[in-house]
């Protein structure tokens, strides 16, 4: 099995960024998904939402210019763009749960072929659980994109028939971007839309626990 064409996650972020329509209201999950903001072209105007009561988040402040109270969901200092607004937590989650956020990009431990998402708990009993806003985002965003490595570091598939990890939400994922492929969640399970150059469909299936189908117009995943 050759998975030589694996992308780095920055390339995956670039691919995700291309799918974000101009004018979208977007919430990026903590961790890897925050890479996406740096990859969105300057030709698009995107309004970033943060669960702690911000719309219109801008890039990180210059060193020394940080405001310790103006942080994003990952507790990193951010800035506010002209047109931005502050509001309270309950309104921030009204936006998320109520379908006002056009799309979210989330990380995942597992995604099932039914679009179930597991991204908050691994059942490691030595650590207390923590959920944050993951469940609200997963049920509420109009479009849920997942960005993840195709397999774990140990080589375990993350795209599975059924999640073995605790669910974040059931049947919510629309599309998955991995370091090997772009896959839509359909009523027939994962449909591969794009694969990295040189990858054999059998090898992708070999790295995936769920059964894959391949789009008639299967394309090469452009990492640029």
């Amino acid at each position, binding site marked *: 099995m050759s998975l030589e064409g694996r992308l780095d996650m920055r390339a995956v972020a670039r691919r995700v960024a291309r799918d974000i329509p*101009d*004018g979208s*209201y977007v919430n990026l999950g903590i961790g890897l998904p925050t890479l996406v903001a740096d990859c969105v072209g300057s030709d698009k*105007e995107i*309004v970033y*939402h943060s669960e702690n009561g911000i*719309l*219109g988040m801008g890039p990180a402040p210059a060193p020394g210019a940080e405001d310790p109270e103006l942080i994003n969901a990952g507790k990193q200092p951010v800035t*506010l763009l*002209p*047109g*931005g*607004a*502050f*509001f309270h937590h309950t309104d921030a*989650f*009204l*936006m998320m*749960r*109520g*379908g*006002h*956020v056009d799309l979210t990009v989330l990380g995942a431990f597992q995604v099932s072929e039914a679009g179930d998402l597991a991204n908050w708990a691994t059942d490691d009993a030595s650590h207390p659980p923590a959920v944050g806003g993951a469940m609200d985002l997963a*049920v*509420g965003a109009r479009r849920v994109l997942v960005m993840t490595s195709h397999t774990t570091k140990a080589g375990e598939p993350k795209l599975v028939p059924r999640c073995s990890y605790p669910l974040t939400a059931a049947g919510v994922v629309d599309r998955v971007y991995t370091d090997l492929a772009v896959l839509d969640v359909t009523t027939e399970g994962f449909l591969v839309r794009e694969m990295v150059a040189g990858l054999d469909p059998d090898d992708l299936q070999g790295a995936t626990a769920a059964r894959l189908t391949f789009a008639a117009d299967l394309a090469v995943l452009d990492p640029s």
Partner: protein
Amino acid sequence: MIDKRVASLAEAVAGIPDGATVLVGGFGASGVPVELVHALLDQGTTDLTVVTNNAGSGETDVAALLRERRVRKIVCSYPRSTGSVWFEERWRAGEVELELVPQGTLSERMRAAAAGLGGFFTPTGADTRLAEGKEVRVIDGRRHVLEEPLPGDVALVKAARADRWGNLVYRTAARNFGPTMAAAAALTVVQVDEFVELGELDPEVVVTPGIFVDRVVRVGAA
């Protein structure tokens, strides 16, 4: 590039279909999006379900919609007020259906829709005829009624100022139902007195963030 400003009232209400559920802001004569309602009237849209606190007065706005028989059903808390002659006329003739909702339940039901909630238990209306047919549950020793979310296909809202992202501020008590209705509808159309540049509205002071707003028109626009 986001620019929710439209050039005319006609453009602001374009595409609102017959049969739509329309949330109309205002309390008495305060905060009523009069020009938007008249644009909807001019467009000929009919068979509407109108959600609004009062049922209009005199010959303007919701009263005009009722007079012209554009309203199939009205959902409100206080339809009977000074000058609500067209509502009373249509109601007595059985030409408009009335769903009477306590005022706080009306706004809370719209908020539930805005917030993606499936409903809530409220003590308001328990033991009254407005709870008839509804699930009642004793919670913490008190009777509560289960109320459903009330989403709009469209919201028509009046605000004071907007920028091109659709961020809104209101003026005094004209705010009333505006922020809730703006968040509770699939298509939110706002009339304002003034457009301002992006960044001119203090981010601490924005009352309705643009995420809830689809179209903004300046009244007085052609």
